[in-house]
């Protein structure tokens, strides 16, 4: 009897404790909110909805936190639905701004549709620049020198063992095992894959014959979903090699790629340098800063294997408040503060000064109708 009565008491008891704990949590939160409300020093307020490329997600979190800290009346959301879905929602008007890993183009009529939505050619600024690291897991070897042609050969399945003459020729004095090479690619469509295959096809000296695309163009081979999936697969196997955002490549060996006569390890500075020497896409309006990355640059210290993620916005919005919000948020993102916040949070490369200035100018025209 005593036992049953204790049992009966346990469940409501736990419920009461749980209620008390969550109750406390909630009241703390609301206290914090009202305190910062009082500190608000700007006139901005309202909600701003955007979304798109998942590569920008951690940077967007940092930007959002900092921006909302400054402007407590503003609520910004960024839904990392992916570049394609982000562009689609931007065109339909569901998002006031969108992030995209590939610059918007007319291959499928998206640029025209976006121009229709905005009433003028959309504004497109680079917001998130990140080096892509070629990562590998080979016990006893921490770093390797490879050129684009050799990397292309490895990923195309032409070079199959780590002691292949092509690899050995670039790595004097490194004791290469005869382990088989297992290249890992992304199984999902990804801007990282597009930039990687773009690099291989342009710098690979004919060793890579497929067009750059979000989808891995070859059949067969090891694949994994998402950046974290590729990193996990490379860690999980021996003799594996893959490609991933440099900031997430933790603990694995990284390839230094050949630029000119030197071999450069992935670095934020190198990526920024490569972006600086790249040419803007031809035939775009003033506010459209789409770049064709110069993959074959020989600039000293440059790292041309990088991903550039853009932000899309309209030059004019029907609602003046929407326009103010987008303008203020995007201005913050391309500012040196914003770029530094992303570098701290996501390991991205801050935009070079000249490009940041150009982006600030591009964003400054945003206005209400």
């Amino acid at each position: 009897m005593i036992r049953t009565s204790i049992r009966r008491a346990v469940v409501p008891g736990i419920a009461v404790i749980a209620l008390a704990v969550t109750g406390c949590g909630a009241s703390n939160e609301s206290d914090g909110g009202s305190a910062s409300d009082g500190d608000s020093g700007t006139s901005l307020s309202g909600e701003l909805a955007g979304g798109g490329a998942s590569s920008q997600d951690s940077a967007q979190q940092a930007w959002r936190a900092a921006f909302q800290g400054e402007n407590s009346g503003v609520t910004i959301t960024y839904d990392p639905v992916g570049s394609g879905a982000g562009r689609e929602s931007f065109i339909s008007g569901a998002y006031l701004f969108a992030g995209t890993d590939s610059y918007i183009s007319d291959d499928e009529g998206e640029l025209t549709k976006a121009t229709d939505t905005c009433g003028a050619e959309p504004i497109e600024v680079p917001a998130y620049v990140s080096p892509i690291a070629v990562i590998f897991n080979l016990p006893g070897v921490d770093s390797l020198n490879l050129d684009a042609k050799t990397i292309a050969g490895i990923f195309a399945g032409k070079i199959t063992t780590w002691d292949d003459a092509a690899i050995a020729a670039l790595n004097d004095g490194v004791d290469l095992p005869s382990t088989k090479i297992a290249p890992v690619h992304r199984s999902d469509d990804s801007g990282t894959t597009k930039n990687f295959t773009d690099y291989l096809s342009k710098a690979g000296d004919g060793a890579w014959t497929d067009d750059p695309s979000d989808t891995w163009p070859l059949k067969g081979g090891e694949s994994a979903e998402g950046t974290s999936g590729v990193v996990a697969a490379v860690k999980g196997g021996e003799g594996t090699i893959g490609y991933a955002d440099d900031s997430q490549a933790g603990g694995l060996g990284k390839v230094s790629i050949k630029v000119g006569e030197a071999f450069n390890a992935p670095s934020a500075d190198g990526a920024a340098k490569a972006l600086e020497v790249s040419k803007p896409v031809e035939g775009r309006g003033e506010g459209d800063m789409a770049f064709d990355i110069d993959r074959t640059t020989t600039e000293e210290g440059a790292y041309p294997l990088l991903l550039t993620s853009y932000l899309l916005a309209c030059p004019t919005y029907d609602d003046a408040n929407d326009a103010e919000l987008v303008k203020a948020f995007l201005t913050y993102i391309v500012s040196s503060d914003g770029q530094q916040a992303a570098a701290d949070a996501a390991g991205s490369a801050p935009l070079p000064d000249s490009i940041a200035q150009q982006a600030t100018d591009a964003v400054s025209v945003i206005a209400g109708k």
Partner: protein
Amino acid sequence: MPRNKPVTSVGDTVFAGVARTAALAIMLALAGVFVFLFIEGFPGLSAPTDVYRPAEDFLSYVGPLVFGTIWAALVALIIAVPFAIGIALFISHYAPARLAVPIAYVIDLLAAVPSVVYGLWGGLALAQALKPVLVWLDTHLGFIPLFVGPASVTGRTMLTAAIVLAIMIVPIVTAISREIFAQTPRLHEEAAMALGATRWEMIRLAVFPYARSGVISAVMLGLGRALGETMAVAMVLSATQVVTLNLISDTNPATIASNIASNYKEASPDRQAVLIATGLVLFAVTFAVNFAARMVIARGERKIAR
């Protein structure tokens, strides 16, 4: 006074109405899904060649996916069904009640684990653990087409995915089979025993024939789950556009559902249409499988009735 009309009350009318609405609503929802898939997916059947990369047209794009979907589900069933029936029999006929109840409880609990957790476990833990097994299969059973290898160095193979799927469908098949086994008429069992049957013979003579159609339904439910499973497969399988029976290499066909899940996010509009069209194909495949299952069950019932 003779009763000409059945007795009805307001409650009856209301209940009948609610039940009818529920039945119609589910039909409407299904029709709505079909219409959506058809309208959104139709342009995907004939998009520019580029969109189907690395394949060339819709059929060559969806073919390996259909194969992968059915192949993964089939291998999972082959692994899961003997296990599930064994567990169900143990619980209903062999285990003492003291043991049967907790085992049944744990099995049911397996069904409540979300698939993304299975995916994490399968991709990170099971794949690692299976690596030596794959190498062993490659060296010793490499002459069988299923194990020609080369063994994957990361362990993320069709075999791994099928084992994860098998674990996910075991609880469904077990739970239903167990209930049916337990409902075998006591008199049948006692009659078999009285004729001198051992316990195994009694199960073969009395329990299996009685439970047959029910177990087939259970297996078909499990198959349905395996066909549609998305996250676990997407996270475990190293997938690409191929058709192969090889279970242990790094080159495996994807399943329709996992392919949609991993590619939809970054897809351009044309590509999204293609993916939705593959969803339409999955819809059709699932229908076909269920239809076939119904036929099998109906035939089984006729046999028993004879």
